């Protein structure tokens, strides 16, 4: 029994108008799919939220045709300034309907309302706002002479940040003059379908954005469709590799944003209280369902015990529970399948001899939950140090010197992100130089901004999203090959 109990503070669901079933969004209209349908549930309660269409190959074909027609007849003929104005409209409508999107995202994904409200939705709107301004300025973006769009792009996004990933994909594609066929993840289709309504409210020309819901088969149909000029994929490294193989030898281009096993490195002169917050933000934010999560804690051996003590004490104040409660810090695991993966890897960690600790907090009866977990005594060879768990589990290793930290941090096929905690500026810059990672956070973690390019080295994928660099994948200049 604690002294200061926080009473339930639920965000109301009333702002969302959930329909019992959803069709596909093709050529500016909601239409029935020709395939089967599936259910999307709330991972916190396992209640069915809605029925969603599973787009068949024929549906994908219709979407691609609509996108092509829109590209040829309308979108490619508009000035950049006019494309920009549509994107500005979309950005503003997202801001106007922010609460609705945040609640829907939390219901469908399981992430805390605090995060959807304060991170996912605002940054998604900001992405549209930023890219709106590029639409008529591409000549200034150092993309080469006469940058032109590819045509129709196929975009496949994951379930961990549904709305944010949608923004990261659609905004630059449209700004540069492409049209889009987008497939949201099968466990989180609802905010993409609500976004389709925003496109209608913004009077976006029909066919410029098409949303086809479905699972792996629908995704495959997009990847294989000859009418798709470029693919943008965010998801697992395994599927990313499959896409790279599938398009080999074809004219199709791809950018891939895949998994990671980032090292979050704490030096003995780190600002220790903020470093502990950084560890927490690094791996427990979004339930650890983050490709760039700081899932390996590399702590300098001289302060390892102290960091361990402070971290575990701080973890006791993390609140796990109803994602719609405004005080919840850690929400539900997105699916039964993901929960099983986490559970199995954590069991492997124990079997390998690492020491497991969790907060012991109570968990709701229904839904998919995993307590924030810390593994100490972890070695590089352990599976929990090599494989992406994608859950609220941190593996702690130690190091002695900066060079050793670099070696351990880079000793992985992944290369998405890294964290460095030290008060010494020159060490930050030297370490940043050494990290084979596309995003380096120093004295902070998991910070995202539309102006800041994001993407990985090695098997974390290729291509960048955001910033000036993120435009490059969506244009062709026709020079060279």
């Amino acid at each position, binding site marked *: 029994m*604690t*002294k*200061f*109990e*926080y*009473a*339930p*503070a639920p965000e109301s669901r009333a702002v969302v108008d959930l329909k019992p079933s959803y069709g596909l969004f093709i050529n500016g209209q909601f239409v029935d799919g020709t395939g089967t349908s599936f259910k999307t549930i709330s991972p916190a309660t396992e209640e069915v939220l809605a029925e969603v269409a599973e787009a068949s190959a024929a549906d994908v074909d219709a979407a691609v045709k609509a996108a092509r027609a829109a590209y040829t007849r309308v979108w490619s003929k508009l000035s950049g300034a006019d494309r920009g104005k549509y994107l500005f409209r979309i950005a503003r409508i997202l801001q106007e309907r922010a609460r609705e999107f945040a609640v829907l995202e939390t219901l469908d994904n399981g992430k805390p309302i*605090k995060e959807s409200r*304060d991170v996912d939705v605002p940054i998604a709107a900001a992405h549209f706002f930023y890219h709106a301004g590029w639409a008529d300025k591409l000549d200034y973006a150092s993309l080469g002479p006469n940058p032109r769009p590819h045509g129709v792009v196929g975009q496949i996004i994951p379930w961990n940040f549904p709305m944010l990933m949608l923004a990261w994909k659609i905004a630059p594609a449209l700004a540069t003059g492409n049209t889009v066929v987008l497939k949201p993840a099968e466990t989180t289709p609802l905010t993409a379908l609500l976004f389709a309504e925003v496109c209608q409210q913004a009077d976006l020309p029909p066919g410029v954005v098409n949303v086809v819901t479905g699972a792996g088969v629908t995704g495959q149909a997009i990847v294989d469709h000859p009418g798709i000029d470029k693919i943008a994929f965010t998801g697992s490294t395994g599927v990313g590799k499959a896409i790279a193989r599938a398009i080999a030898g074809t004219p199709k281009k791809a950018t891939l944003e895949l998994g990671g096993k980032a090292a979050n490195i704490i030096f003995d*002169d*780190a*600002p*220790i*209280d*903020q470093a502990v*917050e*950084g560890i927490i933000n690094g791996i427990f934010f979004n339930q650890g369902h983050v490709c760039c999560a700081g899932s390996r804690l590399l702590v300098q051996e001289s302060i390892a015990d102290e960091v361990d003590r402070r971290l575990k004490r701080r973890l006791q*104040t993390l609140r796990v529970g109803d994602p719609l409660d*405004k*005080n919840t810090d850690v929400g539900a695991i997105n699916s039964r399948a993901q929960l099983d993966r986490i559970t199995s890897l954590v069991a492997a960690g124990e079997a390998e001899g690492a020491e497991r600790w969790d907060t012991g907090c109570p968990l709701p009866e229904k839904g998919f939950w995993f307590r924030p977990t810390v593994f100490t005594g972890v070695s590089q060879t352990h599976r929990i140090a090599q494989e992406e768990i994608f859950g609220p589990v941190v593996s702690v290793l130690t190091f002695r010197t900066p060079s050793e930290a670099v070696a351990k941090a880079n000793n992985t096929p992944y290369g998405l992100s890294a964290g460095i905690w030290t*008060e010494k500026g020159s060490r930050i810059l030297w370490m940043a130089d050494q990290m084979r990672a596309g995003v380096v956070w120093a*004295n*902070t973690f998991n910070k995202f901004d539309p102006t800041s390019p994001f993407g990985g080295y090695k098997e974390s994928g290729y291509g960048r999203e955001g910033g000036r660099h993120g435009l490059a994948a969506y244009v062709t200049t026709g020079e060279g090959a």
Partner: protein
Amino acid sequence: MSSTPVDTAVDATARARDLLGVSRLTSSALTAWLHGLPGVDQVGCEARAAALGTRSIKTDSKKWAIDLAISMIDLTTLEGADTPGKVRGLCAKAMTPDASDLTAPRPAAVCVYGDMVATARATLGTDSGVNIAAVATAFPSGRASMAVKLADTREAVAAGADEIDMVIDRGAFLAGDYLRVFDEIAEVKKACGSARLKVIMETGELVTYDNVRRASWLSMLAGGDFIKTSTGKVSPAATLPVTVIMLEAVRDWLDLTGEMVGVKPAGGIKTSKDAIKFLVAVNEVAGEAWLDNHWFRFGASSLLNDLLLQRQRMTLGYYSGADYITDDAPSLY
């Protein structure tokens, strides 16, 4: 957990030598120790404070928090224009915060200038449960000789103050003369006798969070029973990030020494919403042992009435207004 025993003041220097592991307590020894504390990243600290501020405290927990906050107030008047009438009004308010609802708790203390202590005592008596805190040591600037500062302290104690709120010499601190700051606190602590000592660091003048951390540790080392943010005469006064740093300091001091030290943010906390954010910070940074008016205070004047307004709203079920809250200390102007 214990409050600093009376005779520790005498041994402050000896204890400090012990903790630092030095044979002589010098300014350079203190410098090495204070500058060896972990740094504070400003952006990260402010982000934590902002995150704590997003907690949504409703219904029962809000009622509880409001009552706790009221009980933690040092109800303050520190004006050059203070008269016996003003102080009597303040004390009457402390004894009956809400004339329409006698279940409202009393604030922890009234806070007045040393020469008003006797007036306060005459109104409060000895069993109201409301303590008398007096500011001393040439409050608010602290710019006077040690002799004057000690005399200021002794007179307030002799007049019946239960608590003394002293100011540190910020000039000495910013010039790096940590030993002088230490000695002044230790001396004032001796002069307090059985009165509890709150050390005002005037964090607005210290500016950096690293300085706030160092001043907190120096004050605790020298024997302060409470570390306090501000005199209320300088802006910024009590902010949430500064208070988070102080809560981290007292938490870590407890781990190191087994002793508890209290925390008092003062100045600029006007609304119930603000006060509840501070209580959330206490809860999640230092821990629930500090959720007690023996270990946490708000230095405030208008905050009390806003808390009472919210309390009335929760009792009545609709919004109340200023006409329904007694104001015994309206502004001069």
